[in-house]
């Protein structure tokens, strides 16, 4: 599939109408489930990361909103003594592209499920997965694939082995490439190299069906990851009976995208043949404590810009309007 996203995309009539229609339909779905909209300012004055679009407003360095979750977290931590349990958002974020074909301005719709620290998160995670399962139907996708992962499957073994910094980054990059041989190279000489390579091979063993979880039996960290495995097993048992037609559910044990941010279960939505995930999210329990709030949270974001591209380049993947 050719990728034709310009850096600063102008949306002409059809795409503009599609964006408006999809935004409305998705926000309607979220509102029905009790998610209330928040709209953080487009211009942010907090410390901004590399990759944000920055400029001077007089003497002040400001940035265009680069991420809804981070912007919302700041807003929520400043404005609410207790967390609103369900929030939703829609709009654009601006980021310098990592890959040459990525757009700078990206349209997104998403939601966050926030709880007090210590509350059970299982129901919240399943709630988000169920919500994401409804989204292909709302968007008119003929078929889709939902990947369930868990960032802790990689985070916890690395932490237990005392691997942080550059070595952790190199190991995660190798896993992101799905390359056990690169994991071995990255850890060459480290006392945990053999264990972590065996773990990488277990994570990369399968990518289909609930039996994928059994691959964890062969990992040297099987006992350490018992809770995560049960959590994924419970989620599968809750989701498989209500799987909509034309949606496939897969377990992806080696999902490490966003590992610096996610702390637990992750969700990714694909369409068959699409080059990029169409929605992504997961549990990120360290963001609010870092802002001084004892809250835990999870959420996902639907990447409408990618969906607009897909509707242009692969209209066969969508039902006729």
């Amino acid at each position, binding site marked *: 599939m050719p990728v034709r996203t310009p850096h600063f995309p102008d949306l002409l009539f059809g795409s503009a109408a599609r964006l408006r229609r999809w935004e409305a339909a998705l926000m309607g779905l979220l509102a029905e489930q009790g998610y209330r909209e928040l709209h953080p300012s487009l211009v942010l004055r907090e410390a901004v990361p590399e990759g944000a679009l920055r400029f001077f407003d007089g003497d002040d360095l400001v940035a265009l909103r680069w991420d809804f979750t981070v912007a919302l977290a700041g807003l929520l931590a400043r404005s609410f003594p207790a967390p609103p349990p369900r929030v939703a958002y829609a709009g654009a974020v601006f980021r310098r592209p990592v890959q040459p074909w990525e757009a700078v301005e990206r349209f997104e719709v998403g939601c966050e499920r926030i709880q007090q620290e210590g509350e059970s998160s299982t129901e919240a995670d399943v709630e988000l997965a169920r919500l994401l399962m409804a989204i292909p139907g709302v968007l008119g996708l003929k078929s889709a694939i939902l990947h369930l992962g868990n960032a802790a499957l990689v985070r916890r073994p690395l932490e237990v082995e005392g691997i942080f910094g550059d070595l952790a980054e190199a190991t995660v990059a190798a896993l992101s490439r*799905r390359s056990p*041989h690169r994991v071995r190279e990255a850890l060459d000489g480290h006392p945990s190299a053999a264990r972590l390579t065996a773990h990488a091979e277990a994570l990369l063993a399968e990518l289909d069906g609930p039996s994928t979880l059994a691959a964890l039996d062969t990992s040297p960290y099987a006992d350490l990851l018992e809770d995560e495995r049960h959590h994924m097993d419970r989620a599968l048992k809750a989701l498989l009976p209500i799987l909509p037609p034309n949606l496939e559910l897969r377990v992806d044990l080696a999902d490490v995208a966003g590992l610096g941010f996610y702390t637990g279960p992750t969700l990714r939505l*694909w369409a068959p043949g699409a*080059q990029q995930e169409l929605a992504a999210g997961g549990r990120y329990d360290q963001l609010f404590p870092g802002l001084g709030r004892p809250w835990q949270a999870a959420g996902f974001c639907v990447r409408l810009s990618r969906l607009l591209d897909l509707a242009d380049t692969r209209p066969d993947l969508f039902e006729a309007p």
Partner: protein
Amino acid sequence: MTTPILIAFPKGRLGDELVPKLADTPLALDPVALKSRVLRIPTATPGVSALLLKGADLPRYVAAGVASLGIVGSDTLDEMDMDLLELADLGFGACRLSLCALAGVTLDALRARPHLRLATKFPKATEAWLTREGLTAELVPLSSSAELAPLLGLADAIVDLVQTGGTLKAHGLVETAVLGRSSARLVAARGAYLSEPARLRPLAQALITALRGA
């Protein structure tokens, strides 16, 4: 609608090793098309074609999802920061990435130069090695025939791939340090592989079986 699958194969040294290994497999390249000048070659499997590309361009085709699978040297992958999957080390095409200088010039002599000039088409790997060694150097970017650079005074030494050492010897050069090793890797487009594993995994497995020379 089922879209055809494209596999990107490298031209040049790796390609020369690869094509005979694929003969009599489901991914054998059409011999008539191979002899022509076309760069898109049908394979023995209907709906699967090969693209013949320069190694430096190949990862871009795969990362963009134009080609779903590809074979490329790990030296090229390491020089390019492309978002793709690297499914297997295929073992063949093994060579060393080495620092090479005129015979008689030692590594210590190179280290002692106040202004070291290194010609290479592998700037990322060279910079990483210089950092590890605590050295600084002026990098002279070249895309081919690096062996000429020390002979003609363009650089003090080169960082280049060495397989048999024949080309080095022909130019009076010797290896003074090995920076790394390279071999052919099977790569895949992230989106295609994760969203259509049922289509791509059998092809990936067929390539691994044919090319690892099991």
